[in-house]
């Protein structure tokens, strides 16, 4: 199944390059085998160059650049092999406002294929919700989940 893996690599790489440019508004990215001669065992390396930068070592990327690169890679995997649902727990914590909006716009383009369940503290992210749930602990350490009506549907009372 060496053939299958190589074709997966090639396809994921195409999508990764595309999505990286969408999220970073430019730059280049690449997924490649560490050892071309040993496709069955070799590890995989992900390279990312934000626009105008010459990043030798991926560890030097900033916190937000690392998050955004990882999200581009994740969505490239989904484009290669769509997954029915995706759960993201505070992936927006390190993103600035502009990068967050680009990420949310990208997510909206794939929500028809993939169901998203997203945990966030960020007001901007809440705005793209179709449904919102809140968690609270009226009794200590006991979670109560309640659904919130979206403000944009005019009435804003939380449903008990």
């Amino acid at each position: 199944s060496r053939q299958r893996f190589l074709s997966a690599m090639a396809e994921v790489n195409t999508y990764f390059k595309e999505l990286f440019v969408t999220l970073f508004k430019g730059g280049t990215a690449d997924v490649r085998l560490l050892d071309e001669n040993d496709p069955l065992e070799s590890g995989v390396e992900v390279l990312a160059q934000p626009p105008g930068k010459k990043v030798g070592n991926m560890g030097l990327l900033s916190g937000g650049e690392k998050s955004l690169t990882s999200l581009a890679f994740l969505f490239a995997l989904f484009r290669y092999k769509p997954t029915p649902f995706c759960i993201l727990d505070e992936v927006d914590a390190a993103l600035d406002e502009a990068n967050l909006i680009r990420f949310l716009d990208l997510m909206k383009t794939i929500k028809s294929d993939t169901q998203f369940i997203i945990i966030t503290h960020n007001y901007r992210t809440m705005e793209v919700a179709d449904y919102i749930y809140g968690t609270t602990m009226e009794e200590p350490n006991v979670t109560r989940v309640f659904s919130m009506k979206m403000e944009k549907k005019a009435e804003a009372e939380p449903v008990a």
Partner: protein
Amino acid sequence: MYIKRLELQGFKTFPERTKVIFNPGITIIIGPNGTGKSNIVEAIQWVLGGHRQKTVRGEKTEDAIFNGTQKRPSMGMADVTLTLQNSEEELQINHRAFRTGESEYRLDGKTVRLRDIQEELWKKAISENKYYVIEQGAIGTFVTSKPVEKRALIEEAA
């Protein structure tokens, strides 16, 4: 296939029977620190066989079971049911675990092995490797993760 319903009882901070209905599209979960948002994500991973990455958040069976508060005693069992739905059918996956360490899985009411559930999910393009779940804090570690781990993600999708 989408997540239609999650029912939990005795799992982490859910001593009472709790039911959460989901829909296609984008569902957002908000709430103060420590009120159980990540525990909902953990419940979904748990019923599907557990975490992808070994996390510090407690890997022992008893860490999944409600361990009590000043007002409530700890419980002996955690019980989570996940209902998945697509245009033709509905799948109900259940996982129960006891403080004694015993645990059982059910698929549409029938006791099965975890392996059987994962094979059934595989047919619906739901991977066992769970690359579709990004745990809290994990998004910043992918870029500097080991090349063999990055390879595993592509192999899983291939």
